[in-house]
């Protein structure tokens, strides 16, 4: 009961956060030189100066910034994200169409990260300061240090070009087709690597710390097998700090997807966002930013729920 109230309260308090995010993005985009009309004019010399003035008037770009913001917000509240000026399509529809690709990429990255990080973190903590631990820490540090665009290009050069294991181009099939999921592997690994390395390091640290606690000695004194002690008693306690970092890394995964999608030409929102910024497509940029904000807020909310599931002391605080 109290948990449901807590979640409701968290959702309500995230509204001001999202409004703040949208205001800052809106303000910054306006502060940047040029607008969508100047971009259209620049790319198409046939547009006359008079036409440009008319377009600005039509798009409402001459209104004061707060009027433009309120107009945009009014639209969002009624589910209208505005139009994509250059193509005349609905911004909401464009986002909606590209969203599944990005979600699938992010989810794959996450699953990859967790699947790698948790077992290797446990392994490193249990074998602390031994060879295996040193090796896994070196790999993790490399994973954090390598820029994802470079990693993406290298993976592509080696596995797609050299060994020809993966396609280099969009197979142009449905999202859940076999070809598409196969193609997903390289960008997914690229995006998940840094997250895996970060989570693994936290997993190792927190598990090593938990292993020194007295309840572990107490569990051993009960005669439980080491496996039970690690996977039941210690793991659950260590997951608490991992959850914090995992939620935090969601932001990194989202921004990572912008780069990785462009490196691999993965047809998701990240690619759309870069194109939108180049064209100063205000409505599209705002929609994607707002959606990103929602995802991060949700990730943190999810982390809080996971906390409560893991730790009864936190559950009682709600």
């Amino acid at each position, binding site marked *: 009961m109290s948990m449901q109230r807590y979640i409701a309260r968290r959702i309500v308090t995230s509204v001001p956060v999202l409004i703040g995010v949208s205001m800052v993005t809106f303000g910054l985009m306006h502060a940047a030189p040029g607008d969508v009309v100047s971009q259209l004019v620049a790319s198409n010399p046939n547009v006359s100066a008079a036409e440009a003035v008319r377009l600005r008037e039509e798009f409402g770009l001459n209104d004061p910034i707060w009027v433009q913001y309120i107009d945009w917000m009014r639209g969002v509240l009624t589910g209208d994200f505005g139009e994509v000026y250059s193509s005349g399509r609905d911004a909401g529809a464009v986002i909606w169409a590209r969203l599944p690709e990005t979600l699938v990429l992010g989810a794959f990255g996450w699953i990859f990260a967790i699947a790698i990080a948790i077992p290797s973190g446990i392994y490193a903590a249990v074998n602390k300061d031994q060879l295996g631990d040193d090796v896994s820490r070196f790999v993790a540090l490399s994973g954090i240090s390598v820029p994802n665009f470079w990693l993406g290009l290298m993976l592509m050069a080696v596995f797609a070009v050299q060994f020809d294991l993966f396609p280099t181009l969009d197979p142009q099939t449905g999202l859940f087709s076999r070809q598409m999921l196969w193609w997903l592997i390289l960008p997914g690994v690229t995006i998940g690597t840094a997250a895996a390395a970060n989570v693994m390091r936290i997993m190792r640290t927190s598990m090593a710390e938990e292993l020194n606690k*007295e309840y572990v000695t107490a569990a*051993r*004194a009960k005669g*439980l097998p080491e496996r*039970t002690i690690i996977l039941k*008693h210690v793991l659950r306690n260590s997951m608490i700090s991992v959850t914090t970092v995992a939620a935090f890394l969601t932001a990194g995964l989202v921004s990572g997807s912008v780069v990785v999608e462009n490196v691999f030409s993965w047809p998701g929102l990240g690619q759309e966002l870069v194109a939108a910024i180049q064209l100063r497509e205000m409505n599209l940029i705002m929609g994607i930013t707002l959606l990103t904000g929602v995802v991060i807020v949700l990730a943190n909310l999810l982390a809080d729920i996971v906390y409560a599931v893991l730790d009864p002391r936190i559950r*009682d605080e709600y």
Partner: protein
Amino acid sequence: MALLEVESLTVSFYTSEGVVTAVDDLSYEIEAGEKFGVVGESGAGKSVTALSLLRLIESPGEIESGSIRFCDADTVESLAESYPDSVVDVERLRRESSFDDVIDRLEQRGVSGADVTGNLEHEGADLHQLYADGELNMRNVVDRGYAVDLGLIGEEDFIVRDGETCYVELLRAPEAAVRRLRGNNVAMIFQDAQTALNPVYTVGEQIAEAIRHHLDYDDEAAKTRGIELLDTVGIPDAENRYSDYPHEFSGGMQQRAVIAMALSCDPDVIIADEPTTALDVTTEAKILDLLEELTDEFDTAVQLITHDLGVVAELCDRVMVMYAGQPVEKSPVEELYYDPKHPYTVGLMSSIPRIGDDRDRLQTIPGTMPDLIETPSGCRFHPRCPYAERSCQQTEPRLVEFDDADGRGRSAKCLEYTGDLEGGLDYSVTVESEHVPSERIPGERND
């Protein structure tokens, strides 16, 4: 044979500052159902001793040498069934090998009489003579590990049978065999219940998991037993509190839960490591009462570790006083109070606050426990001992055994008892006639 025999146990910690010998050549035994107290200041090696019994010493600590023998016949039998290749029959060894030959080989290795019998009076004695006198036989050689050194038995032969008696040598047993004893035969109560309980599992689950694991109960039966145990240790409304988490229990209740956990598989020995240190005085009295009542009821032996002589007086039959990793005095409990033999024991006792004592300051033992990396020469207590003489700096006293008025054994490690102390021990013990040492605070069982 006693239920648990510890002999010449030495445990060291390899730290960056040097090797800390936390427990040094420690021997003692606990009879079935006996309440055995281990007393000493912080750092005396009490907790390390306790963890050694469960073989839970962790890196950088290491059990260097010694023997820990556990002799519950049923347990030994069940282990012998699982590890038939690790059983040694001492009688067969006697038949199959010439003992004179064994003695020769021991002598070649420079093993002394005291080394092999454990009796310090046999230092320097001829091994053949000891054998002839019946002081030394094959069993000593097996017990003290020389049989392994001589290749008479294998490194992994940890179950020893000698006619009617049998035991498990814990220090040679494989990890899986030790795990079968932990919690099941030898259970532990930790100092701080709050940290000994895993915060993310219910109290009930933490009791039930050991029951399921050792006694092979199913979920339902383990839960029923868990609730019974919580009820036994005096948790009100046990059925509902079973699914509470540790943080929902008060300190006293947490300690009760930890006691329930220790009792869960009906162990033969409970090692209680300062079980009441973290509790307030009234709760402490109740918990001690409970511990005494339950261990009497189930005839469980207890090794009670404490720095509080008052707690020992209340609960124990026999006491060992430890100083700097070594035993300095072993005695039946009343004897220790009325006639302490070691100056350190005297020091500990005079630092107990007493009602009616109008001195401004409590008496303390001057100085601190020595650094265990570089222990003082001679008697380890000499820098703090008011009766120390020159000889105390040079000669390490041995633990001298003697019998008290009732013929019960006691021992003390002081040069006084080997006649090497010129000035003698100049203290006297006054017994206040109206003082009742084991009076307890009466109280109900609920916290």
